[in-house]
C-alpha cells in the first residue's frame, strides 16, 4: 500500500512527464494537463529529452532494458520540483518501481529521490493545488474508470471522481464492479487477447448499463482499450482522458 504522503504547498514550478502513450497517441491530453497546471499559476517545465518511463519492458520482465531507459529519464529532473505524470500507470512505475529497479545500483539514491517527487495529475490537482473548477459544459452523465495502477499502486481511487464532482453539469454514474480491471495490462492484452477481450467487454457493458453518455479515465492504456471496444462496436459512447475533459469543460 502507498504510504501516507505529506503533500507540499503549491510550488511555483513543476516538471511534466508526458508518457509515451500520450506522446504518440493522445498528445492533446498531455497539453491539456499542462494547461490545467499553468492555469493554477504554476510554471511547467517539459524536459524535451523525455521518452518513456520504461514500464513496458519492466512488466515484461526485461529489466536490463527497462533500467537503461529509466536511467535516461532520471537526470531530466535536476531541480527539486514536483514531477507531474498524467497517468497512474507510469506514475506508479516511477514512484514504486524505480527504487526497486535501481536497488543496489549506483543510481539508487537518485531513483529514490525522483520517485519521492512523482505525483499523478489528479492527485496533484486535488491535494496540492486544491483546484477549484468552474464548469461551462452541458449536463451529462459520465462514468469514471480509474486505472488499477492509480487505484491500487498509487492509492488514488478518489481524486479523479473528486475533480468530476466539482463540475456542476456532470452527473457521475458508477458502473457495476467499478474497481475491476478493464483488461488492458499492457502486453497482457497482446499475450492473452481473449481473456483481455472478455474483460473489456464486461467493462463496456457495465459503463453502458450505468447510463453513462461519456466516460473518462486517467490512463491512456485504459482509454485505448475501453474506447477502442466502444468504437469497434460503433457505439456513440466515447471516452476521454480526464485532463482533456476537465480542460474542455472549464476553459
Amino acid at each position, binding site marked *: 500500500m502507498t504510504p501516507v504522503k505529506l503533500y507540499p504547498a503549491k510550488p511555483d514550478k513543476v516538471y511534466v512527464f*508526458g508518457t*509515451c502513450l*500520450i*506522446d*504518440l*497517441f*493522445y*498528445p*492533446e491530453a*498531455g*497539453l491539456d494537463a*499542462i494547461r490545467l497546471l499553468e492555469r493554477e499559476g504554476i510554471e511547467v517545465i*517539459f524536459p*524535451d*529529452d*523525455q*521518452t518513456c518511463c*520504461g514500464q*513496458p*519492458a519492466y*512488466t*515484461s*520482465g*526485461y529489466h*536490463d*532494458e527497462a533500467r*537503461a*531507459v529509466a*536511467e*535516461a529519464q532520471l537526470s531530466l529532473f535536476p531541480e527539486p520540483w514536483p514531477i507531474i505524470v498524467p497517468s497512474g500507470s507510469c506514475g506508479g512505475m516511477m514512484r514504486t518501481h524505480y527504487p526497486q529497479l535501481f536497488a543496489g545500483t549506483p543510481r539508487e539514491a537518485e531513483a529514490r529521490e525522483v520517485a519521492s517527487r512523482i505525483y499523478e495529475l489528479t492527485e496533484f490537482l486535488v491535494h496540492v493545488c486544491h483546484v477549484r473548477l468552474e464548469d461551462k459544459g452541458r449536463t451529462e452523465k459520465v462514468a469514471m474508470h480509474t486505472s*488499477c*495502477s492509480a487505484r*491500487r*499502486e498509487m492509492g488514488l481511487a478518489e481524486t479523479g471522481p473528486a475533480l468530476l464532482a466539482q463540475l456542476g453539469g456532470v452527473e457521475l454514474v458508477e458502473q457495476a464492479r467499478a474497481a*475491476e*480491471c478493464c*483488461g*488492458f*495490462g*499492457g*502486453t*497482457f*492484452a*497482446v*499475450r*492473452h*487477447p*481473449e*481473456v*483481455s*477481450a*472478455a*474483460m*473489456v*467487454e464486461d467493462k463496456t457493458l457495465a459503463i453502458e448499463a450505468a447510463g453513462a453518455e461519456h466516460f473518462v479515465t486517467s490512463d491512456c492504456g485504459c482509454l485505448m482499450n475501453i*474506447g*477502442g*471496444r466502444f*468504437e*469497434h462496436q460503433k457505439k456513440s459512447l466515447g471516452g476521454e482522458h480526464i485532463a482533456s475533459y476537465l480542460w474542455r469543460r472549464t476553459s
Partner: protein
Amino acid sequence: MSVQQFTPQAFHRQAHEALGDPQIRANFRRAMDGLMTKRRDVFTDWDLETLRELGANIRLRALAKLPDLLEQLETNCQTNGIRVHWAEDGEAACRIIRELCEARGAKSVIKGKSMVSEEMHLNAHLEAAGIEALESDLGEYLVQLNEQTPSHIIMPAIHLNTDEISEIMHDKTGTERTRDVDYMTAAARAQLRERFMSADVGVSGVNFAVAETGTLCLVENEGNGRMTTTVPPMHIAVTGIEKVVEHLRDVPPLYALLTRSATGQHVTTYFNMISSPRKPGEHDGPEEVHLVLVDNGRSNIYQDDELLDTLRCIRCGACMNHCPVYTRVGGHTYGTTYPGPIGKILMPHMLGLEATKDLPSASSLCGACGEVCPVKIPIPDLLVRLRKEAVGEGRGNVPGAGVKRNRKEVAAWKSWQWLATHPAAWRGSTAVAGKLRGLAPSRVGPWTEYRSAPKLAKTSLHALVKAHRRAKDEGGES
C-alpha cells in the same frame, strides 16, 4: 479412475474453451461476486489493514526462523506422541503415507480436505497400491465423484451449480434429481458417515502447525475434518513445511484473517487442535498420529529473499475470488493444483517455468490479488519477478529460467531501448510516425478483433509543447 485432464501447457486452449462456455462463466461470476461481497461485509468488525499488517508480520517472523521452528515443531510433536516424517518431494510423501497405511494393513483411507495431498497426487498413488482413498469434504467428494480435480482451493466444486451437482449425485450415488440442497447434503452426509466408520486411516491437511506446543490446527466447516482425525485408528496429517507458526498466540489473528478472507465467516463451525494420539484412559481418538512435512520445492523458494514471500500464503483463496482473470476462465483452465494468482506464483516452482510459462503472463497486473491478500503477499511483484526469470534476466533460481528468451523479442526490446535512450532519434521517430500514420496497420494482431486499432496522433506531445511555448512567448494561448 480417469480424471479429467487439464495441463498448464494448454492454458490458451483451456481459456478459450472456458470463455466460450456460458455455464462456466456464469457459475464463477456468481460465486466470486458472492464471495467478494461476503468478505467485504465481514471485515467491518476489524480494522482490516491493521490485521493484515499483523498477519503479514506473523508469517514473516515464522519464515525468518523457519529451520529452527521446524526443529522445534518436530521435537514438541514427538514429545506429544505425534510421529514426524520429512518428505523431499510429493513422491516421497506419497511413499511415506502408503507405507504407514500398509504397515497397518489398511485398505481404505478417508480424507479431509488437503491441497498438499492434491499437489502430490496422493489418491492416484494410493489407488495404484490397492488402497481406496475417499474424499470427505463435500466439495472434494463431488469433484471426486465427477472424476475431476478441484477448481478452487477452498471451494473445490465451485465450478458446478446445483443442477449439475444433482445430476452427478443422481448418476453416481442414485439420489433423486432435485434442487433441494438440504436433501443432497443429507444424502452425501449419510453416504460419507458409513465410510468414516469403516475407514482404516484418516488423512488430513493442516492450516497452522504451532512450533512451541506441537499442535496441529485444522480449520473446517463440515465436521468431516474432526471425523477424519478422530474416528479412524490412525490419523496422518500432511502439510507443506511453510505452515509452521511460532507461538500459539500467533494463531488467532491468522485464523481471523483466514475465515474472513476465504468465506466471509467470523469463525468456522469447527476449529480442531490436534496435539496427541489417544492417551491411556481416553475413550476415543486415533491410536497413532503422524505428521508428514512436505518440501516439494519450498526450500528452494526459501533461498531467494524475494520469492520467499510466496511462502507467507495461508491458502485462503481470496486472491482467486478477486481475480478478474480467474473469474472469467475458472480454476481448471490453469491446469495446476493451485489455480489463480497464488497458483501463478507457486506452480512455476513446482513444475518449472517451461510447463507453466503462460501462467505468470496471464495477468494484467491489476493488483486486486495483492490488495486483498490477508498476509500482504506482493503478488504482482512476484509475477513480474517470474516473468523476469522466464526471459532470462532474473537470478536464475527458478527451474526453467530463461525458457522464454528468444532472439526476436530480445532484439525488439533492444531497439526500443536504443530509441528511448536517444531522445533526438525518439523525437524524430515520433514525428515521423505521426506523418506516416496513414500507413500504420489498421489491424494490430489480436487487438483489433475486439477493438479499433489505436491511431497515431498527427503531432506528438513534444511537437505540441513546442508550439505551445512559442505561442506563449508571443503572448497568446496555443
